């Protein structure tokens, strides 16, 4: 017999059943109090005051969403030739790294072109496109998305410099062409350990909430979660950290893409 309930009731009942019994709770209380009383009295390590959205090296678990990534190097000659990558692929000049995160008009035109072509090819079932440094990947949704869905381009740029006097070096850059309000998880085909999670929501005032989780297999592994409000055409630094490899900064920018062509 499976009595039907609301989701709230179902979860609360489960939480009640899974709570420890009285004896287990007492045992845990004793263990906690003992741990506290026997903890080292050396200068205490700081307790985290907050999980700052710009604190990047937070170890992050990724949901196993099981997206089957159709990884194709498609339209490469067409798109990658037109989609401008940073002109100086290895080095990013001091002070100019923010500009590298900004989309140019030509890049947006190229993105829109490939998006429309792929969307047409797959009858509107395109879920997302990732334009990497030398590859293009995409995935399909089970069904067509509404023509009114807001499409956006998001750039993720990671730069590092070993010391404050050194030049910034680009270690990762990808553009993601996605639909607002779709939560997507993208496995980077270049490295099976790299994952990007993205969710974008357009606010009534035209700004975008961009929620990003990434776990990149570069420089010993970079993991971060950020949640920021971004404005079109205005790149923003969303994460910064000191690592054994130097200072790492993560920049992001967003641009809305025009609606589908008929």
């Amino acid at each position, binding site marked *: 017999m499976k009595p039907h309930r609301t989701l709230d009731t179902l*979860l609360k009942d489960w939480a009640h059943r899974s709570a420890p019994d009285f004896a287990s709770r007492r045992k845990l209380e004793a263990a906690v109090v003992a741990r506290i009383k026997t903890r080292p009295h050396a200068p205490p390590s700081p307790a985290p005051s907050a999980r700052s959205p710009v604190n990047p090296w937070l170890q992050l678990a990724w*949901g196993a969403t099981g997206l089957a990534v159709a990884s194709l190097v498609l339209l490469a000659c067409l798109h990658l030739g037109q989609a401008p990558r940073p002109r100086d692929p290895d080095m990013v000049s001091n002070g100019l790294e923010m500009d590298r995160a900004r989309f140019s008009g030509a890049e947006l035109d190229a993105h829109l072109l490939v998006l429309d072509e792929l969307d047409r090819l797959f009858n509107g079932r395109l879920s997302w496109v990732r334009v990497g440094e030398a590859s293009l990947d995409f995935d399909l949704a089970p069904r067509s998305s509404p023509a009114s869905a807001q499409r956006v381009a998001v750039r993720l740029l990671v730069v590092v410099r070993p010391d404050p006097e050194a030049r910034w070096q680009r270690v990762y850059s990808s553009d993601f062409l996605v639909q607002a309000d779709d939560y997507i998880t993208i496995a980077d085909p270049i490295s099976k350990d790299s994952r990007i999670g993205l969710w974008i929501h357009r606010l009534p005032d035209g700004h975008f909430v961009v929620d990003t989780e990434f776990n990149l297999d570069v420089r010993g592994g970079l993991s971060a979660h950020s949640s920021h409000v971004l404005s079109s055409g205005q790149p923003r630094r969303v994460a910064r950290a000191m690592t054994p490899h130097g200072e790492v900064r993560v920049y992001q920018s967003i641009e809305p893409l025009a609606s589908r062509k008929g």
Partner: protein
Amino acid sequence: MEADWSGSDEALIEAYRDGGQPDHLDALILRYIPTVRNMLYQIVLNHADADDLTQEVFVRVANGIGRFNGNARFSTWLYRITMNQAHDFLGRRKRNPAAPSEFAPEPVTGDGHDPGGTVAAIELDDRIQAALQGLNPRLRAAIVLTMIQGISATEAARIESCTLATMYWRIHEARRQLKRQLAEYLT
């Protein structure tokens, strides 16, 4: 075991800071152990891990209480530490899939008076746990904080350090996924 203190959280913190009496700290901690432990279990879905993490959380609280500045409520500060611990743990477990606690199914802790009912409860709990495990940890945290723990979306957004819009979306998306997974049990 229960320390007899009925003052507010802030009063206990103030008293502990002023007098350095461990009883005040014990009272504060004992007050929150059940909630923190339940919250951790609902995120990591393993009883032994939840117990270990509960200890870690309160050691951090004890070490950091001197720097609690009162800008947020104590519970918000505590739950942030709790969720940080949970997310960090899940990150470690994800990178180390050989860990024995990897999403190990948990037995239902029923009292066994009704064998038929217990079997049904086990089946239902397995389904609920599987559905929760299938959620991205951020979505799971949103559901645990708001639907199970009854924390407001605004407060949950502060705890998870995200915008309110993001929290609303996470709740919406998590509910959508859970409803799909648990459709046969729902009205």
